């Protein structure tokens, strides 16, 4: 195994002091996994709270404000409630697949987190096909949704799951192609390398017009990928009950719910890394203090997350046919044109470098 695990290296060295090398490697990986799990379970809960607060402010309401100061413990209490609830299921459900589905969804979204460079050396898994890996992993989650819808033995759930299949397969293309447009500039799929390239200006500046178009397409397709409103055909409370997770309760429901919010974070984090310079500070103002990169990364990501929430609480929902028209007749042709434009710009050296 010759993969570089940046933060794991320190832990491996620490552990190999009193363990054999193999055991130290595995120990380090388990430690990292547990740390990530703990951080992102809590972060996911706070994203839910953020969503609820932001939604309230958009609708001139107050939002959760009872549990803890300013309602800060609200989602913690919700999670506690969900853990203590009974796990129900339908009689004719396919028990094995039904129980497997939530784990598919949550594991695939947690896996994607491992490749993000939060700051210079804070990256669990610096794989050289980073972007490709992310696209592959993010389309894995839909299997969980399909399984959940199918195994619940419920018509609404099945319709929701099928819609999810249609939607994810269509919009996956746009996500992939818009990221490909940016890869034309970076010339690398490795996320740390992509950030490195942006030391001469963030890619959205370097690539100017086609980069802005690619960013817009990415944000639209990314919102659709996470099944959020205005693309929430999958859950569609108004016509499908709750879509694919109608039959889930308690912690299994919570996994689906948490995965949705972690996916939103992931989509925003990919955009941060690829378009807005990842952990790089604007104009290199904090270049001498590398650990501040975490704050820049999380800050930029949260701004993009806010943008997605803004979409959600502004735009009306689409019908399924409108959804597909938008993808196949508008986003996809534009995206292909945009790639040619970007290729020309890179070929003619028209990128803006500082």
């Amino acid at each position: 195994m010759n993969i570089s695990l940046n933060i794991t290296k320190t832990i491996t060295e620490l552990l190999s002091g009193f363990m054999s090398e193999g055991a130290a490697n595995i120990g380090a990986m388990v430690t990292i996994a547990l740390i990530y799990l703990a951080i992102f379970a809590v972060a996911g809960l706070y994203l839910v709270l953020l969503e609820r607060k932001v939604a309230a402010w958009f609708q001139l309401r107050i939002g959760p404000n009872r549990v803890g100061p300013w309602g800060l413990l609200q989602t913690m209490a919700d999670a506690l409630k969900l853990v203590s609830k009974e796990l129900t299921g339908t009689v004719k459900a396919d028990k094995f697949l039904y129980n497997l589905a939530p784990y598919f969804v949550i594991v695939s979204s947690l896996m994607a987190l491992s490749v993000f460079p939060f700051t210079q050396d804070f990256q669990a898994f610096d794989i050289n096909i980073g972007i490709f890996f992310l696209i592959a992993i993010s389309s894995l989650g839909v299997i969980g949704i399909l399984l959940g819808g199918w195994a619940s033995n419920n018509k609404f759930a099945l319709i929701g799951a099928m819609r999810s299949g249609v939607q994810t397969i269509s919009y996956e293309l746009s996500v992939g192609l818009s990221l490909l447009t940016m890869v034309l500039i970076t010339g690398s799929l490795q996320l740390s390398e992509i950030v490195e390239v942006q030391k001469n200006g963030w890619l959205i500046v370097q690539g100017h017009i086609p980069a802005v178009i690619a960013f817009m397409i990415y944000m639209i397709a990314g919102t659709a990928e996470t099944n959020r409103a205005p693309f929430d055909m999958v859950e569609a409370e108004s016509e499908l009950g709750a879509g694919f997770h109608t039959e889930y309760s308690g912690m299994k429901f919570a996994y689906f719910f948490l995965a949705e919010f972690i996916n939103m974070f992931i989509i925003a984090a990919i955009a941060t890394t690829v378009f807005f310079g990842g952990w790089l500070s604007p104009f290199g103002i904090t270049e001498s203090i590398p650990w501040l990169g975490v704050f820049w990364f999380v800050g930029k990501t949260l701004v993009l997350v806010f943008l997605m929430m803004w979409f959600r609480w502004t735009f009306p929902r689409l019908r399924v046919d409108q959804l597909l028209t938008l993808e196949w007749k508008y986003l996809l042709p534009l995206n292909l044109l945009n790639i040619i434009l970007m290729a020309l710009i890179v070929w003619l050296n028209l990128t803006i470098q500082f």
Partner: protein
Amino acid sequence: MSYFGDIYKGIKTLLTGMSVTGKYFITARKGAITQQYPDNRETLKMFERFRGEVVMPHDENNEHRCTGCQKCEIACPNGSIEIIWDRQIDEETGKKKKMIDQHIYHLGMCTMCGLCIEACPTDAILWAQNYENSVYDRSQLTKVLNQSGSKLKAGVED
């Protein structure tokens, strides 16, 4: 060229929508329309429009203004009010007269529509300002609005 025209128009309208909600977002802290749950029971002043339950006020002589005309009973769309009345001899004039015996109000069935209060010709009933009306037994929701031994205030009928 309507293809690109559509895209332009689409983006423009989406941005218009976002600017509207964005404005709401910025002003949300000042203009929140949510009312908080009334925790401040001591200093609480409820709003004029608040509808707690229908009550019949009595004055210090235990007199109310209800003539037993049954207009509220007829006005109520879901039969929450029952008037039990009988004919008694009026002491002053010596004639038989319709008088209210019990004004029964089913709070559990009331939709707080306020039609009974509007219908009452003598303003005998009005909205109370209380809240937290839940009880452990349904029978507690059936209330007799006129107090026992109360009688009609003189002059209301004129």
